[in-house]
Structures are given as C-alpha cells and as structure tokens.
C-alpha cells in the first residue's frame, strides 16, 4: 500500500495549503445538507405516533451526540498517530478536536435534557447513557486542562495523547450502555436488529443532519488545525509565503 499521501499530509506546509482549500467545500456542503435536513425534519417529517411533535429534537440531538463521540475518536486517533510517528500535524489536529468535541457533547447533553423533561418527566437522570456522555465531557475538559497546564508543547502533546487514548474506553461504554444496562434512554436510533428503526420520512432528514454536522466538524477542525499549525511552526520559513508575506 502506498503511504505517500499520509506522509505528505503530515507535512505542515502541505497540510496548511490543502486544509485551506478543503474548508470552503466542507462548509458549503454542510450548509446545504443542514438546510435540506431542517426542512425535512421540521416541516416534512410526520409527527411520531408516541411523542408527537416533541420527537423533532432528534434532528439536532442525535447528530450532536454522534459527533461528540466521533470527535473524540478523531482526537484519540490523531493523538495516537502523533505519539507513534511523532507527527506534529497529528498533534495539532488532536488539540483542535477537543474544544469542538466538548461543545458537541454539551449540546447533546442540553438537548437530551430538554427532550427528557416532557418524555421522562425529568431533565436529568443518572442513567448509564447520560452519565457516560457526561464523563465524555469531563474527558474533553481534562484533555484541554492538561494541555493548558503544560507550557512545553512537546510534553503537552505526549501527556494529552496518553489521556486521550485512555479515554477511548468510554466510547464503547457510551454506545453499548443502552444494551448493557437497563436504561431510560431509548435504544439505538438508526438500526434495530439490523433494520432501520424509523421510516424514510424521518430517517432521511436525520441522515442529512448527521452529514451536515460531520461536514461542519471537518470544516471547523481544519480551520482550528491551520491556526494550531501556524502557532507550532512560527519559526519555519514556509510560513511567510503561506500567509502572503515575502520573507
């Protein structure tokens, strides 16, 4: 297998240039998918036979919850790559994931809480799914706190990478918590026994919103990572050319 692309992407000037070209594409596609998903979810999808119109929170809650774990998986993978291959760009990507992931987690918790009040009769319950999602928020905050506490970037990269990798254990706990324990939280949203758990009129807008959130995450991550790469490479000669300043 040819790994040239992998090593080229690990080159800071190459990453900075390619990421800059990719951001507008991700952002526009995210906007288009979000508009289509919102129209489908808020106007075209029928009410749920049990939850009525209240279920429409699903179109923001589920994408935020999925992205909260996806962002952590990307962060831990990038941290692992940075740790093993000593790739500076990978550490920059990992560091850029944390804040966005923490926001997705906070949104998932807040919208889940607002959904729980009319359906369960409470804003919060120490349920396995909710508790493990809260632990995810603390992992993000811990990761950012650890990075902020260490002045030396290389040491901060290594220490936070280890924390990110240890925290991966929480991802299967979040995913399977509704299977492993008795839970107030509903089961898997997309698939149940290998089949779609909702009709296409609800599933399509939900998938569009998940696509929109994923593309949004990619765009925000790349913008943050470009800034992080600039800060890390501040003494490199390619910087002047990349930002339009003649050396």
């Amino acid at each position, binding site marked *: 297998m040819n790994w040239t692309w992998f090593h080229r992407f690990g080159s800071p000037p190459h990453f900075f240039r390619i990421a800059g070209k990719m951001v507008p594409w991700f952002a526009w596609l995210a906007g288009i998918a979000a508009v289509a998903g919102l129209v489908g979810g808020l*106007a075209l999808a029928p*009410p749920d036979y049990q939850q*009525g*119109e*209240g279920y*429409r*929170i699903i179109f*923001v*809650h589920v994408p*935020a919850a999925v992205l909260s774990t996806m962002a952590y998986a990307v962060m831990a993978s990038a941290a692992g790559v940075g740790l093993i291959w000593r790739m500076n760009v990978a550490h920059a990507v990992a560091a850029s994931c944390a*804040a*966005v992931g923490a*926001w*997705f987690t*906070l*949104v998932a918790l*807040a*919208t889940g809480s*607002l*959904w729980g*009040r*009319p359906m369960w009769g409470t804003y919060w319950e120490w349920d396995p799914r909710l508790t493990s999602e809260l632990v995810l928020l603390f992992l993000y905050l811990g990761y950012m706190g650890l990075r902020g506490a260490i002045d030396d970037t290389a040491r901060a990269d290594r220490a936070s990478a280890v924390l990110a990798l240890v925290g991966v254990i929480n991802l299967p706990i979040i995913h399977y918590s509704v299977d492993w324990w008795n839970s107030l939280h509903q089961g898997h949203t997309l698939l149940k026994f290998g089949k779609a758990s909702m009709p296409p009129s609800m599933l399509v807008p939900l998938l569009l919103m998940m696509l929109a959130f994923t593309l*949004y995450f990619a765009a*925000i991550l790349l*913008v*943050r990572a*470009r*800034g*992080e790469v*600039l*800060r890390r490479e*501040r*003494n490199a000669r390619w*910087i*002047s050319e990349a*930002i339009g*300043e*003649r*050396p």
Partner: protein
Amino acid sequence: MMHWLNMGGYWPFVWPSYLITLFALALNIYLARRSLAAAKSEARRRAQAQRSEA
C-alpha cells in the same frame, strides 16, 4: 404557522434545543475563525520583524 410553531405544545422544549444548537455552532465558527486570524496576525508580525531585522 402558529400551529407549526406550537409544535403540538412541545415548543418550550423543541425550539430551545434548536436555539442552543445554533448558538453553539455559530460560536464555534466565530472561535475557530478568531483563532486562525490571531495565528495569522502573529505570523505576519513575526515575518515583518524578521524582515526589518534583515
């Protein structure tokens, strides 16, 4: 329209969920752009300082 906004009586839960999400997404765009702009501005300042030293 009012019927749609009412969300079957669930509007106090549905619309705040969308507003919180919109706020978080907009804030993240602002923070990411500000972070990149600050890094670029710092890099420009360094480049200009190096040029004047040379």
